């Protein structure tokens, strides 16, 4: 696993999120103010990696709990409790400063099974004699509000695409793989700033290859993520009730927009009956309206958005039949494939618009059809010359259907 092989050993190897790094270092060095820190932000941007790297640097021993453990108050205190008080003992017995308690993905603890988890963590933070670090994906901090009062908040953002590309390049170089820049860019773009998934995708794409070309990305396998989303989508679409679908959506770690686009892509595969499809799409369209209303601020509306998503996937549970999911979201790739054509079209329309005193849009709708018809009929037409179109642009118009 390249994600293991290239796991950052020290802080400098973690790409991006400079502010968060500084903030975390300060907190750990001085442990000023609050006893615990909450690192929150999207998956795969280096939250856990930073904790491990820093602990190593400052010689803390990390005691970790993550989402796979059940977190009722009892177990949390049972497992984690002792280490907070035994800290001083460890300090003598080993060559470390002591323990550091890491609760990974604390936003996963609000299901029925984890009842009381937040209260337990709060209690623990208050009692703890060693630093406690929490990580969370959910930007909806409402749920974590009780923790907010006792923890120092550190925000992580998606890693910028160029940084991800640079990292992928480094890995390719190290692995002796020649990769086209655009190929890496697509992988990075598709990861949406999730470094871990980008590395995973790179690895599965490079399997048995020395050269990675842009064409290879067409069947982007997305092993790890695909598996995950595959499960989630199966749960959502095969759900017999909307409640069930909603639970599956909330359990998943995928971001809202990926969900929206993926359900959008897969709806026609799920509903072959036009009546069902139109009902489902109408609901999805309303979900999209709520996404628009939420923007980056009104997270309180999120529950309506999720609810509508769940409704749209369970319009007719009785007709469900397994199908092959479409993933990753088509549009992200489509925008990439067609980038050059789009730019060419814009350039042509801009030239027409300038000459005929119209907008690019009018140039496309009002002039392009006629110009196309003329140059198709009259190969030697001098119109392109008058518009200042070069050969490539003229050929492009001729090839339009």
């Amino acid at each position, binding site marked *: 696993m390249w994600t293991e092989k290239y796991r950052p050993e020290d802080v400098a190897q973690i790409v991006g999120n400079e502010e968060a790094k500084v903030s975390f270092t300060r907190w750990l060095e001085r442990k000023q103010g609050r006893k615990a820190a909450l690192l929150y932000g999207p998956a795969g941007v280096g939250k856990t990696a930073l904790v491990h790297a820093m602990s190593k640097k400052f010689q803390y021993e990390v005691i970790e709990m993550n989402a796979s453990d059940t977190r009722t108050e009892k177990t949390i205190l049972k497992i984690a409790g002792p280490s907070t008080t035994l800290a001083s003992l460890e300090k003598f017995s080993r060559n470390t400063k002591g323990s550091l308690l890491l609760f990974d993905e604390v936003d996963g603890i609000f299901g029925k099974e984890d009842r009381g988890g937040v209260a337990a963590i709060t209690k623990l933070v208050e009692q703890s004699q060693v630093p406690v670090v929490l990580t969370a994906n959910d930007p909806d901090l409402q749920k974590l509000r009780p923790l907010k009062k006792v923890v120092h908040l550190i925000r992580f953002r998606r890693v910028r695409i160029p940084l991800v590309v640079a990292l992928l390049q480094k890995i390719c170089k190290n692995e002796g793989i020649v990769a086209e820049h655009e190929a890496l860019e697509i992988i990075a773009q598709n990861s949406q700033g999730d470094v871990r998934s980008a590395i995973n995708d790179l690895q599965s794409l490079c399997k048995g290859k020395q050269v990675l070309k842009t064409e290879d990305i067409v069947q982007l396998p997305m092993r790890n993520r695909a598996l995950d989303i595959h499960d989630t989508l199966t749960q959502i679409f095969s759900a017999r009730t909307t409640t069930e679908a909603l639970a599956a959506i909330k359990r998943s770690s995928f971001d809202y*927009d990926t969900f929206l686009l993926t359900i959008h892509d897969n709806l026609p595969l799920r509903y072959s009956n036009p009546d069902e499809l139109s009902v489902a799409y109408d609901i999805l369209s309303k979900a999209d309206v709520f*996404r628009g209303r939420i923007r980056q601020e009104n997270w309180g509306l999120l529950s309506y958005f999720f609810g509508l998503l769940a409704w749209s996937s369970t319009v007719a549970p009785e007709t469900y039949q397994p199908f092959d999911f479409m993933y990753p979201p088509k549009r992200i790739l489509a925008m990439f494939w067609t980038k050059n054509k789009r730019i060419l079209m814009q350039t042509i329309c801009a030239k027409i618009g300038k000459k005929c005193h119209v907008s690019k849009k009018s140039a496309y709708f009002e002039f392009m059809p006629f110009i196309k018809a003329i140059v198709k009929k009259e190969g030697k037409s001098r119109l392109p010359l008058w518009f200042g179109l070069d050969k490539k642009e003229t050929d492009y118009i001729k090839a339009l259907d």
Partner: protein
Amino acid sequence: MEKTNDSLMWAEKYRPQTLDEVANLKDIIDSLKAFLRNPNTMPHLLFAGMPGTGKTTVSLCIARQLLGPSWKTFTLELNASDERGIDMVRDRIKQFSRYSRGAFASIPYVIIILDECDQMTASAQTALRRIMETSSHTCRFILICNYSSKIIEPIQSRCAIFRFSVSQKEEIARYLESIAKKEHLNLLHGATEAILDYSQGDLRRAINLLQTCAVYGSKGNVDEKTVLQVIGEVSPAQVQLMLVKALNGNFIEAREMMYNLITIYGLSGSDILRQIHKELFKISHLSDADKAEIESIIGEYDFRILEGANDDIQLSAMLAQLSRFGKAKGKLNEQ
């Protein structure tokens, strides 16, 4: 036979250069000429009207006649649909409105022609309003729009508003015939009628169609058949085909075409919906009641796009509605 008639767009070749050449719009031209005689009395202008009714032509004539030979230097032509943000107003317009006229004492002011300004955001319009106030002694605005109702009140009240009505069929016919004569083109029986029918009072579209017909006709003759052939050739095949596919229940292919329109042609959801709306009236298989129902479907999703986050989802939802509708009504002929 060698064809020399396609070295430039006729819409430009035959665009009137002075207000006197503008054949119709008599009332508007008369008032504008009064301004030309006494440039300092000219207020900011707001031209409203449908496409192809002469708004841009008249604006260019005014600039040319007011500013003389170097009119291009002192005229800024912008299209709000191409750059609709507030930055355009802040940077380009503001700068140009203060443009120094230097030694050109004969130039009364600079002119800014702002086309499709009903596409501007409200905040950009507000910013524009300020500039119109502060720059009135150095600059005149000619604002062009389809619907003056989309222009904020304060701007409307600062402008003399001229409404350009759709040209009469006879006027367009006369115009087409005069061009045909100059291009040595014979418009045979039914050709002019067919062009008028298609162009719906849009003179620019009529001229573009005429020019294309000239290329498709033989020996300088254009008959009705030629016109219909060209109309088939220039109809936005993509949009129409998408519409028919959706109505035939072929949702997945229709959605595929929609993706192409967005990604390759760079069109927005609203652009596509408006185009579908136009195409709708050309489908002969549907009854008026059906068209009314489809129209309300299109309108509904156009409205949702305003608030929604993803155009392609709203468009897909609309296509799904059309598929359902098509299923209920039985199949259409795929073209």
